[in-house]
């Protein structure tokens, strides 16, 4: 019984206050405090090119320029939230995680548990280059970031197909249905973040297109358009991979099914990922990315600092480096990562503007400017939660 009570009391104890707060310090003081620090960044490590960018470029540069040792820990949204939540519930004084790579739904959850430090973005000297006028950067899942997360990259959901097997990919929902009827078993939706993002794009389309679901979560709209979405998905489900009886649990599984020919379509939240995957020899050279006329969601991914980080100064320096023209330019190279930059070209010094303009174009994915008019803003995070829950009850369990 005493162990039981100890367990309860531990879990009820209050979290310790933040160990350091760089607010009010000059950048020179922050740099000095950061030198010699070791910090941990939790990030998704499912792409060898991204890992290489971090390990072979970012980590050594941080050590060389700022004397900071950055360790990378694997984990994405739910891992970040679970880890920080458990630490807070256990009353841990200093977090094991200092810096996190997040997107809107994780941002929403971390704000729910008050796990993020901020506002901090205005402390970063390179903040002046960020394209805050771009709503796809300024708003994260309809939430103004308000300095609690720093934009790092910008991507758009793209469908990837094998151009030999699919000479003319379907451009809208009706065309997709016809295509599926003619080619059963070659398409599916992952029961994970990217799959849900596609469903969100379809929901926005059914609700009237761009801007239809902007603003806070509207239960009435969801009740109105959600059933239309499920009716459509259930209608095409019998033509999905495996007869719609199961759905890939991860994007990696989708990619693998595409690579071995079981699927003729996969998808990616990074519109240029197809180039990376072809270069790595994972996808066939005939793979192409496209955005259907119905549009897909474009969003940004961000960097957040744990409220319980004991090395916030070092975390700030890392953030500032990652949004520097140099690091963003490097990251945008199709051969390096191909991630969209979050900087405004007009705000950059002339030499950097030129270097950004000289970045080689994409080979198998459409240029960003070609698909910009099909970009949809992320709706509020509650849509994602409802879709994820209802996808199970309305589609998978039927």
């Amino acid at each position, binding site marked *: 019984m005493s*162990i*039981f009570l*100890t*367990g*309860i009391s531990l*879990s*009820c104890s209050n979290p310790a206050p933040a160990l350091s707060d760089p607010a009010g310090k000059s950048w020179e003081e922050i740099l000095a405090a950061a030198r010699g620090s070791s910090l941990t960044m939790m990030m998704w490590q499912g792409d060898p090119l991204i890992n290489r960018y971090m390990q072979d470029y970012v980590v050594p540069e941080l050590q060389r320029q700022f004397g900071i040792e950055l360790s990378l820990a694997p984990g994405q*949204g*739910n*891992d970040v*939230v*679970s880890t920080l*939540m458990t630490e*807070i*519930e256990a009353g841990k004084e200093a977090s094991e995680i200092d810096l996190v790579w997040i997107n809107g*739904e994780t941002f929403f*959850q971390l704000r*729910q*548990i008050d796990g993020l430090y901020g506002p901090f973005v205005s402390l970063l000297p390179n903040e002046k280059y960020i394209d805050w006028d771009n709503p796809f950067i300024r708003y994260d899942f309809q939430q103004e970031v308000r300095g609690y997360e720093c934009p790092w990259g910008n991507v758009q959901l793209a469908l990837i197909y094998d151009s030999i097997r699919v000479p003319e990919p379907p451009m809208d929902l009706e065309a997709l249905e016809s295509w599926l009827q003619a080619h059963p*078993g070659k398409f599916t939706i992952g*029961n994970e973040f990217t799959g849900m993002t596609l469903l969100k794009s379809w929901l926005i389309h059914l609700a009237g297109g761009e801007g239809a679901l902007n603003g806070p979560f509207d239960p009435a709209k969801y009740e109105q358009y959600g059933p239309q979405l499920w009716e459509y998905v259930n209608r095409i489900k019998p033509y999905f991979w*495996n007869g719609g*009886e*199961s*759905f890939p*649990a991860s994007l990696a599984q989708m990619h693998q*099914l595409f690579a*071995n*020919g*079981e699927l003729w379509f996969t998808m990616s939240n990074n519109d240029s990922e197809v180039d990376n995957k072809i270069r790595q020899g994972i996808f066939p050279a005939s793979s192409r990315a496209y955005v259907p006329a119905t549009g897909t969601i474009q969003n940004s991914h961000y960097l957040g600092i744990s409220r319980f980080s004991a090395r916030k100064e070092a975390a700030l320096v890392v953030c500032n480096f990652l949004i520097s023209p140099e690091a963003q330019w490097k990251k945008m190279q199709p051969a390096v990562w191909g991630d969209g930059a979050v900087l405004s070209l007009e705000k950059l010094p002339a030499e950097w503007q030129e270097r950004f303009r000289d970045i080689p174009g994409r080979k198998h994915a459409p240029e960003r400017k070609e698909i910009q008019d099909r970009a949809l803003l992320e709706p509020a*995070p509650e849509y*994602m*939660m409802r879709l*994820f*829950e209802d996808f*199970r*009850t309305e589609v*998978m*369990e039927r």
Partner: protein
Amino acid sequence: MRKQLVIGVYLVLTGGPLFAGLGYSLAYSLGLTGLLNEGFTLHHWQRLWSGSDALLSLGYSLYLTVASLALILPAAVLFAWWQYRKGRGGLFHKILFLPLTFPPLIAAFAWYYLLSPGGLLSRASFQAGFTGGIGDFPRLVNDAWGIGILLTHLFLIFPLFAILFAHQAEKERMGELEAISRTLGGSDRQFLQGVFAPLLLKRSSPLIVLYAIFLFGAYEVPLLLGRSSPRVATLFITEKMTKYNLLDVPVGHAMAVVYTLSVITLATLLLRRGRFKLFEV
């Protein structure tokens, strides 16, 4: 006295964390602790049982446990019977140990690459002209009956029971029992069914119960080879605790309580009913 002390320490070390965790999950599910909880409530328990999802998960876990054991145990008994007839040893007996070195996740991957429509069997079948493409190959992973899961469990656990039963058969002086059976006019089949198999199963019951619990809590193999719905209880819990809706975390804890109590109850009932001593094996 010393033995009691050792048992006491053992119970505290093993049962302590288990009951502390159970207590924590119970408190979480009742709203008594947890970041987003606001005090005592039965709401999370009501949500757990509001649909068929939780029951389906428990039922699916139970199905996989029973079906796996229904495959593994008869196969292991027959192996022990074969060894008993021809004498232990041989190459097969040696390589039988090999699957025991596989972690479940690696085994699941291996079977996925073997059985999936894009896997080795499918490719071989295509090359041999039995199938005309990926779509013709029968679905053996992520399928309705959990065929891939059951085969992987068979691969992972059969060797353990096969070796155990073969060893047990030697210990039980089966020769003498068979002689008595023959004297009474029993056939080979009657000896196998009436004496050999029941004796081995009874003697190994504690281990069978432990493996039933292990299979009921399987995670990696169903994660890779199972269907999206229903999913096993462990995946249900993980999903509720780690996915997008933080308000589902207490529901995950409620399921964890149900799962833990089910396992404890099952183990207690089975072990007490048979009056087995756990340390007999």
